[in-house]
């Protein structure tokens, strides 16, 4: 009887298809990236090994550093501004009884839409002459702003659109954690005379710290791989002001055929993402372990 579960034919039949796909699209491609990252391959001529030349080039490539900086903007904007707002709105929604369903459903809605369609929709709102924002500014006699065309505003405009799309998704995650907390703790605190604000900051937020930590992790990961919204709204422009690492890499590969360089960039992006994750795990996330209720 024990042998039923020790059937190598079934075992490999169940494991190999996934493993083959995984190997092909993750491991093999990762190895090609690493391999070609050290060459000058441009898909037309055979590749030559060039050592660390691509990486040196990347370090001297000011355009790439602008892209890195923009990714960091994304990261800071989502962690420093969005996460507190997300927690605030989650607390508000968890505290109301009436209309809770409506809030939960509505705020989540943008997250199910495609980033590219949201990019088009917001591009329409940002239109320099006929878009909503400049119409509203016009009511106050303020000069129209070229939201996506002005290097000062383009990045900010994309960040706002990105926040509009994703905040609800995280709110729903945190809300679920709040609603699954044992009610007794909060009730006991209320009887002891704690105000709603005190209960939120001293009881609820510490208790949901693990899920807030997950949301911060997801925001960091999201900021590192952002690309669609940039390609659709500005394609990195004006003058590279909204270029992020991934869009820069994609453009180097597909537009200029610099495949070797693009693959070296992808290794750098991977390395930066690993370092950020590790730093986060060893500093902030570690301190939050061991919360029990």
């Amino acid at each position, binding site marked *: *009887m024990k042998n*039923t*579960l*020790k*059937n190598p034919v*079934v075992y490999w039949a*169940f*494991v190999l298809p*996934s*493993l083959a796909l*995984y190997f*092909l*699209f993750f491991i*093999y*491609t*990762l190895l*090609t*990236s690493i391999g*070609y990252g050290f060459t000058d391959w441009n*898909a037309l001529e055979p590749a030559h090994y060039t050592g660390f030349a691509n990486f040196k080039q990347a370090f001297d490539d000011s355009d790439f550093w602008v892209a890195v900086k923009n990714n960091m903007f994304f990261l800071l904007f989502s962690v420093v501004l969005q996460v507190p707002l997300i927690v605030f*709105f989650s607390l*508000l929604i968890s505290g*109301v009884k009436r209309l809770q369903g409506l*809030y939960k*459903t*509505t*705020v*989540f*809605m943008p997250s*199910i*839409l*495609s980033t*590219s*369609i949201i990019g*088009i*929709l917001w*591009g*329409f709102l940002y*239109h320099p002459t*006929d*878009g*909503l924002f400049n*119409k509203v500014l016009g009511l106050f006699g303020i000069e129209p702003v070229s939201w996506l065309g002005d290097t000062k505003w383009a990045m900010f405009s994309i960040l706002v659109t990105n926040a*509009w799309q994703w905040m609800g998704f995280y709110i729903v*995650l945190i809300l*679920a954690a709040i609603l*699954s907390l044992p009610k007794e703790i909060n009730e006991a605190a209320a009887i002891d005379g704690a105000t709603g604000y005190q209960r939120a900051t001293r009881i609820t937020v510490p208790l949901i710290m*693990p*899920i807030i930590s997950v949301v911060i992790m997801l925001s960091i990961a999201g900021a*590192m*791989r952002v690309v*669609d919204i940039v*390609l659709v709204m500005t394609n990195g422009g004006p003058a590279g002001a909204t270029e992020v690492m*991934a869009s820069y*890499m*994609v453009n180097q590969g597909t537009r200029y055929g610099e*495949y070797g360089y693009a*693959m070296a960039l*992808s290794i750098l*992006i991977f390395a930066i993402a690993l370092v950020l994750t590790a730093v986060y795990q060893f500093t902030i996330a570690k301190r939050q372990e061991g919360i029990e209720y």
Partner: protein
Amino acid sequence: MPAAIRKTIPHVVLLLYVAVILIPFAIVVFSSLKESNAEVASHPLGFPKELFFDNYVKAWKQAKINVYFFNSLYISLSAAAAGVLLASATAFALTRMKFLRTSKWIYQFVLIGMLIPGNVLFISQYILIQKMGILNTHMALLLPYTAGAIPFSILLISAFMRSVPAELEEAAIVDGLSSQGLFFRIILPLTVPALVTVFIINYLGNWNEYLLSNFFISTDSLKTLPTGMVGFRDAYQTNYPLICTGIVFSVLPVVVLYAFLQKKIIEGLTAGSVKG
């Protein structure tokens, strides 16, 4: 502060947030029913003077939104279904079948995939797809979408399968079920909640994917909705009512579906992530 006011303040703040979410949609719907750019421009938030449905006919005929829509639907559904099926079979073998050392190694190997941010491999995947000779076919999206979901799906489904009590399968084996029978008739039905979560996450990811579909597919009739709509915008950049109609066409089916399924979607997403 009187209780009534204290109870109202959260609603005021939250309704403002709801307005911020809904106003862009309202503007797009109103604009899609307006006759000209001039009317859109003069009162962006105003209700159309007269409902002008011609845009809808025009967009449906010119924009091929229906073609993009069904391409997206077919690719997202099949890749999500294939991913869930492959991952659950693998998770079953890794967690319930008795090749413990091999399973441990394979599991660790697959976990490496979770460390790699999706876009990093884009250029090499592009080359791979080109080498396989499937560039510009639906296979160019089906394979990477299915493969891309595998690490996360195996991780989540494995965690769920480990919690199924061993007595259940022992009883089934005594009753004469084979290992594949055990998978299809006992374990798979028991893990449906986890499978639904994984399916929804993968499906939404595929439905919204832009980068691969933009570069791997160039034939218009094979394009998915996100890429098709960008092409449509670029072609009719100066006709706001028409672009808005395109947006309505591409958003409406998803929003309607969401209205029906929102409970399941929200629960499915939260069930998997909260007890982390």
